């Protein structure tokens, strides 16, 4: 039973992850990313970490990927236009990355040895244990991560905001050229004289 569930979701995770990187349409890629995250969450639950599993769905599948989709739909990105791996340098870099990743995998399996084959959900991490560990032993790193995220949020807000009219007048805040998003069409049928969206009378 357990093996069947594991095999099913491990297979789903790998296949959907492959679809994420190979599919031409960004919407399909993102949708398979949801499937990948969901399968990973199931695997986390099977490993005895339901908290991580629930958070995986709640935060990644439930919120972050929705934002990806939101942006994709807002920019109206159609199929990928660039052919794959156009630059030779890119190809070499990809090969290098793949080599390093494979090396790490070999190292990992070499260190751990062969898996024991014990039932997966035997070691069960309860919320109380997790909370105690997190807020006693690892309190400082936890708070530092929180601070780091806060700094990142403030940084992103500052980078994205526009100058208020007063600041612009005083020349205090210069965000530079408005970023233009590639592939986004400017309003096509605007009459420059009237500013109306019409072709003709």
């Amino acid at each position, binding site marked *: 039973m357990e093996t069947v569930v594991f095999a099913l979701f491990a297979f789903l995770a790998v296949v959907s992850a492959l679809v994420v990187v190979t599919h031409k349409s960004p919407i399909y890629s993102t949708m398979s990313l949801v499937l990948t995250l969901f399968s990973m969450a199931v695997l986390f639950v099977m490993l005895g970490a339901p908290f991580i599993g629930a958070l995986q769905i*709640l935060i990644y599948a*439930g*919120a972050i990927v929705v934002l990806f989709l*939101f942006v994709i*739909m*807002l920019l109206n990105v159609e199929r990928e236009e660039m052919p794959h791996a156009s630059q030779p340098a890119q190809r070499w870099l990809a090969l290098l990355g793949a080599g390093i990743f494979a090396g790490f995998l070999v190292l990992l399996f070499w260190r751990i040895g062969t898996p024991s084959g014990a039932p997966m959900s035997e070691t069960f991490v*309860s919320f109380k244990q997790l909370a105690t560990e997190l807020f006693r032993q690892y309190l400082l790193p936890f708070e530092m991560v929180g601070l780091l995220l806060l700094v990142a949020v403030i940084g992103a807000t500052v980078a994205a905001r526009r100058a208020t009219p007063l600041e612009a007048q005083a020349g205090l805040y210069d965000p530079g050229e408005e970023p233009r998003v590639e592939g986004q069409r400017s309003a096509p049928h605007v009459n420059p004289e009237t500013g109306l969206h019409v072709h003709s009378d």
Partner: protein
Amino acid sequence: MTMTQDLLATALKLAVMLGFVLNVVPVMVWVERRGSALIQDRPGPNRLGPFGLIQPLADALKFMFKEDITPAEADKPLYLAAPVLALLPALSTIVVIPFGPNITVGGHEIPLVIANVDAGVLLFLALSSLGVYSLIMAGYASNNKFSLLGAIRASAQLISYELALTISVLAVIIPVGSFYLNDVVAYQQERVWNFIPQILGFVIFLIASFAETNRAPFDLPEAESELIAGFHTEYSAMRFASFFMAEYAAMTALSCLGVTLYFGGWSLPFVHLEGWLGAIVGFATLVVKVAICMAVFVWVRWTFPRFRYDQLMRLGWKVLLPLAILNLLLVAVMTLAGWL
């Protein structure tokens, strides 16, 4: 308990809860139509059966026999999958809702909740957050500007209100100290129902749940005055009905959660019943409480005008979210001080 007995018990519990949620849909169609008629001072459907009670059956038959249309330019796989996925989150979230006290069958104690898991409340929130994908898929795949706008609105709206909803739910969990919903019920049985000490959190939860279920006054994703029908503009026949059912199922699931968190769930004040009688009374209590919530959903829909999109976003991020965080802090301090 052997595995077969375990599976059998789970199957029976699933049958009870699924039967409940699926039967809510036709009943709610009738309540919605008669309720709106009552509020707008007109008779409403009254031809089929007494008080028009058989009208939902006729509606269902009509949905089944109508032509099922797929736009030529639609993205077929996503277009066909979206209505199916719409029902999944709502139907799967009910597995963590307790509907009665533990009963003893043949020497085994069986908790009356389908999945008695450690992450109960979190699992509910996680699964219900997946509901937005069917709306996005439907809106994108229809290849229609009204649908796409509806989908974009849906994704922004659901993300915004999920935060306030989750934080107000967490505030309930703090004094209880457990994510098991049965512990939340037991806590309220000992003291008072949570909506009295946590009235602020309850109001936030209520408003956010209207937005999460796309109900008026927050039904922006399908605002018919601007977007025709939003994300399901192109859908017809049973596929449209599936979105319709999903909306009511989501309302039921969220009502179940709200009732369990703030109104004592299946328990009654001052009454402690055990065994089978307790189970039957507990389930009936839950159904009655959920029915009251659903009536409030209908009442609000037909009495409040729709929000504008910028008002919706401002309310979510600038009012509800800070209030929810404030509520969380208040509850945490009160719990530490021993008042809750």
